[in-house]
C-alpha cells in the first residue's frame, strides 16, 4: 500500500521523456499577455488580482527593495497557480518536490543576505546581536542567531513541501476511506464525505496561503536587508 500511496509524487516521465518540464511550464499558459487598453475578461481579472497583490506586498519596501517586485510577484503567481492546479484529479504538483522548493528558496534568500551585506554591512552584522543582551550571553547568542539565519532557506523550502504534500496525502487517504466505508455503513461514509469536502476547501486556501507566506517571508528578508 505504501508504494502506491506515493505514486502520484514521483517525477512524471512518459516513455522515458521527462514531461515534468511541460507540467512546470503549463501554468504560464493560463496567464495570457496583456496587449490592449481593454483586455478580455480573463486577462482583466488576472490584472486586477495581480495589482491588488502588488500593492499589498510591495508598499512596505524602500526604492531599492521595490526593484525586486517582478521577482516576488512572479514567485507568488507561480507557486499559487502550481498549487491550485495540483488540486485537480490525477495531476502532478511540482511544489511537492523538495528539490524544486530548495531551488527557489536558497537563491532568493542568499540574494537578500548578500544584498544586505553589500549595502548595509554594519546593520546586517548587527542583526546577529539583539539589543540589550547581557555580556556573558553574547557568544552563545551569536551562534544561535547564525544558526537561525542559515535555517531560513531550509524552513522556507520544507514548509512549502510539507504543507502541500501532507494536504494531498490527506485527500487521498480520506477519499479512499469514504469509498471503503460506503459498503459498510452509509452514515459513516457520509460523515467522512463531509470531512473530505471541508478538507478540499482547506486545501484551496492552503494552496494560496502557502504561496503568500513564501513570498512574504522572502520579502521580509529583503526588507531587513535593504
Amino acid at each position, binding site marked *: 500500500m505504501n508504494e502506491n500511496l506515493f505514486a502520484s509524487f514521483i517525477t512524471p516521465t512518459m516513455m522515458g521523456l521527462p514531461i515534468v518540464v511541460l507540467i512546470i511550464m503549463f501554468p504560464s499558459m493560463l496567464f495570457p499577455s496583456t496587449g490592449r487598453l481593454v483586455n478580455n475578461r480573463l486577462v482583466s481579472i488576472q490584472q486586477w488580482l495581480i495589482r491588488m497583490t502588488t500593492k499589498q506586498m510591495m508598499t512596505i519596501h524602500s526604492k531599492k527593495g521595490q526593484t525586486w517586485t517582478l521577482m516576488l510577484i512572479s514567485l507568488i503567481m507561480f507557486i499559487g497557480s502550481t498549487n491550485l*492546479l495540483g488540486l485537480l484529479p*490525477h495531476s502532478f504538483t511540482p511544489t511537492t518536490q523538495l528539490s524544486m522548493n530548495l531551488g527557489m528558496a536558497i537563491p532568493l534568500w542568499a540574494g537578500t543576505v548578500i544584498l544586505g551585506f553589500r549595502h548595509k554591512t554594519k546593520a546586517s552584522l548587527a542583526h546577529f546581536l539583539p539589543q540589550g543582551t547581557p555580556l556573558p550571553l553574547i557568544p552563545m547568542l551569536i551562534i544561535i542567531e547564525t544558526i537561525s539565519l542559515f535555517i531560513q532557506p531550509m524552513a522556507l523550502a520544507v514548509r512549502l513541501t510539507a504543507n502541500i504534500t501532507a494536504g494531498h496525502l490527506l485527500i487521498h487517504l480520506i477519499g479512499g476511506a469514504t469509498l471503503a466505508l460506503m459498503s459498510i455503513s452509509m452514515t459513516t461514509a457520509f460523515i467522512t464525505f463531509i470531512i473530505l469536502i471541508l478538507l478540499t476547501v482547506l486545501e484551496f486556501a492552503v494552496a494560496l496561503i502557502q504561496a503568500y507566506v513564501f513570498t512574504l517571508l522572502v520579502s521580509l528578508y529583503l526588507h531587513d536587508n535593504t
Partner: protein
Amino acid sequence: MASVVPLKEKRLMEVKLGELPSWIMMRDFTPKGIAGAFQRGYHRYYNKYINVKKGGVAGVSMVLAAYVIFNYCRSYKELSKCLWLPCLQWGFP
C-alpha cells in the same frame, strides 16, 4: 480562368483523400515548423474562446479538462494495476 492551387498550400480540409500521404510528407517538420504549428493552434484556441467580448468560464475549463485527461493518460499504467473500487477511483489501494 482556372487556377490550380499547389498541393503544398492547401489546407487540410481541401486536400483530397488520395493526395493525403503526399500532403503530409510536404508539411514542415523542422523545429521551427513544429513551433509554428503549436503557436497557430494556441492562437486559434485563444482567439476563439478566450479573447472574446463576453468570454465565460468554458474557455479555461476546457483547458483544465484537457489537462486532467492528459494526466490520466500519463498515469494509466499505474492505475490499471489496481483491482478494487477505491483503488480504481483514487489511484491507490
